[in-house]
């Protein structure tokens, strides 16, 4: 296994020496995500594929910690955890069978359980990585509480491979809930937003919410008695085969996600009243995420400006999650002071700017 690391490090050093960008690509399941005009001067860079560096390094269920190599297929990792009655509580989307742990953490994406359990970054305890000089560095660790040094492990989550190549990741894991049930209630959007927020303010075992087409779907997870008690309080119809529904939301297989040419994700204050925007919306995370599927009749710039302003006014930001516009800005623009810090961090981790240049922001 160390030979693989040595090889990856040699590739990075060579790329840095010749100032040639690299495109880190594991399963490639999330290729669609991020800036499409990647690369410097339009050049995307040669592929750096770390998937050979795979396998679980250490897993002791009673420690609630798993350490695995970045190339480990997400599916394999989840199967191993499941066999021991545990899970990745942030319910990561796979977006395809080839999804790896490295891609999962580098994109930092979380699924339906996020609002109650936390995001990918919340579960990251430690990383081993290669920086832009090919140096093999470890930060954080395999314990739940650790404040020695800056929190570089969590910084890596969601950095889209622009700061370094992940080699190993340690994650906190949680027990599978004893029971899960899904209920469905009919109501309008404003009522749904109010209801989700009201429930979140009560000690109820709500683990996921989704509002679409006049129906609020809610999942309860936890101890059998708690789920039963909550079920009686919340009302609505219980739906069977609920795991396929939640999977369709997580994996964006639900028809909503393919209904328009552009899929926007607005991450905003959960109590924000219904947004008036063109297209259709689907709400998740207790109101904190509003998906917008749109076939714009206006030009793309007008839509973008409208969506970004709406998100900002609601205390958040907007991402153009999927689109067929190759040169579109995907992530929400940063204020100059913030971009300065980003640029300086990028310079420190990747001085030659070889990792995924431009995938997160053109400046990085």
């Amino acid at each position, binding site marked *: 296994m160390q030979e693989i690391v040595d090889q990856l490090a040699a590739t990075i050093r060579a790329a840095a020496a010749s100032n040639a960008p690299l495109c880190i690509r594991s399963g490639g399941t999330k290729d669609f995500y991020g800036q499409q005009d990647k690369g410097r001067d339009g050049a995307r860079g040669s592929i750096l594929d770390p998937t050979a560096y795979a396998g679980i390094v250490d897993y*002791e269920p*009673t*420690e*609630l910690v798993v350490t695995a190599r970045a190339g480990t297929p997400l599916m394999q990792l989840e199967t191993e955890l499941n066999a021991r009655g545990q899970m990745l509580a942030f319910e990561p989307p796979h977006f395809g069978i080839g999804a790896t742990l490295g891609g999962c953490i580098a994109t*930092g994406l979380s699924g339906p359980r996020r*609002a109650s359990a*936390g*995001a990918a970054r*919340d579960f990251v305890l430690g990383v081993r990585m290669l920086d832009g000089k090919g*140096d*093999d*560095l*470890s930060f954080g*660790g*395999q*314990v*739940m*509480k*650790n*404040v*020695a*040094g*800056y929190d*570089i492990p*969590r*910084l890596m*989550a*969601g*950095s889209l491979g622009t700061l370094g190549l992940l080699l190993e990741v340690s994650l906190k894991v949680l*027990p599978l809930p004893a029971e899960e049930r899904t209920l469905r209630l009919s109501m309008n959007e404003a009522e749904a937003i109010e209801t989700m*927020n*009201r429930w*979140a*303010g009560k*000690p*109820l*075992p709500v683990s996921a919410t989704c509002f679409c087409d006049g129906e609020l779907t809610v999942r309860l997870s*936890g*101890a059998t008695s708690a789920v039963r*008690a*909550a079920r009686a309080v919340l009302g609505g119809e219980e739906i069977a085969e609920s795991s396929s529904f939640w999977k369709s939301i997580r994996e964006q297989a639900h028809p909503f996600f393919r209904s328009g040419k552009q899929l926007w994700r607005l*991450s905003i*204050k*959960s*109590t924000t009243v219904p947004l008036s925007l063109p297209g259709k919306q689907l709400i998740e995370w207790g109101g904190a995420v509003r998906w917008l599927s749109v076939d714009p009749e206006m030009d793309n710039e007008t839509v973008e400006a409208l969506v970004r302003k709406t998100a900002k006014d*609601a*205390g*958040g*930001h907007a*991402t153009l999650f999927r689109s067929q516009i190759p040169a579109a800005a995907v*992530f929400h*623009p*940063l*204020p100059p*002071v*913030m971009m300065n*810090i*980003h640029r*300086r961090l990028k310079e420190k981790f990747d001085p030659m700017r070889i990792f995924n240049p431009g995938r997160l*922001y053109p400046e990085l």
Partner: protein
Amino acid sequence: MNRMNNALELVKKLRTFLPAESVLHETEDVRPYECDGLSAYRQTPMIVVLPRTEDEVAGILKVCHALKIPVVARGAGTGLSGGALPHPQGVLLSLAKLKNILGIDPAGRTARVQPGVRNLAISEAAAPYGLYYAPDPSSQIACSIGGNVAENSGGVHCLKYGLTVHNILKLRVLTIEGEILEIGGSGLDAPGYDLLALMTGSEGMLGIVTEVTVKLTPRPEKAQVVLAAFDDIRDAGNAVANVIGAGIIPAGMEMMDKITTGAVEEYVHAGYNIEAAAILLCESDGAEEEVAEEIERINEIMRQSGATEVRTSRDEAERVRFWAGRKAAFPAAGRVSPDYYCMDGTIPRKNLASVLAGIEALSAEYGLRCMNVFHAGDGNLHPLILYDANHPGELELTEEFGAKILRMCIEAGGTITGEHGVGIEKINQMCSQFKTGELEMFHAVKAAFDPESLLNPGKAIPTLRRCAEQGAMHVHRGKEKFPELPRF
């Protein structure tokens, strides 16, 4: 003399926009700021400033930045690693006067507060809405939320409810240049790099936190605690693993050894079995039915794990009494010994028995008693070494003993600090935990925010020279550390 002139010039500049009482420089006025909760380290600052607004903080930073004067932030000064230890040629920036709760949003379940607000004050203000701020350090009546962010503080409930980093949404931070950074947002994530995580636990070295938006959590309907006694500490350790192995995440799981229970029992009469080698407190919270179910299972597991006695709190008064002992552990140490030194390593729990045996052996070797208090659920150990600073040399012996405990924690696959921070106290141990390249990266991160190293300089991250000069260097993954630096 130089220091004197600098101080006077600075005082003059600051008083152009701050009232006289906000700028302290007389020795008797700055003396109270000479140390934080780790009183073994003391240093009077050149001057102390007490701004009342974010604008004033920005003004102070701009002046210090222009004059290249170091700035050390201070919240309530309860830190246990010397993080807020002043710089002799620097400004001590107290955030204590920024103590307003700016707003509570019960529907959105957030509170927006200034950095000097006390941790417990947030929960008190949220209580009428059935909400509270979950991270609950034992120092919560005194410590500030700004300090909590700077240290990523935890509490006895953090296994289930998370640390500070999991419970904040947004920060306003001033850079050393006095520019405002808005980090995070009102949603659950933010664009770009996760600077919220980077700021949390950064010990006042990257920026000054001037506003924090925290998440509020609904109060559970009910909480109950199981008190179990064990005559072998290994059984207690296994009981913890068995509870977690059974798929239970307790609201709190704390362990105390015999010397600790003896000390606290005398003090608060919590009802602990003082003959036991160790006791465990294991709390369940949630819906009425859920707690009943979980408590029954915990009882069962404790018995099967060899507990000699298992009791469940019958009412709220008894629950509070069972916890009172744990919460009084530090003051109890202060009663049985003139001084105590609190350590803060974290280890994978499976190594608990061997690390505790190691501590016992060191205790005998150094002739110093050591009480063990343990956040058992997450592996965070707080050995309290008892000593008397009036005995010449005893503090030095204590520090050596402590350093050896931390080295054991690293060797056991853990870390030198779980929640108290590195500060000045554990700066040498950072050399044992990290390699050259890793320390360089930490310095690089600091430089990305604070290129001239004016914010809390000399803390948390050791210079490579310091590591090389230290006798106690470690061999890491079979390689000698710092081969490029000369040995002394």
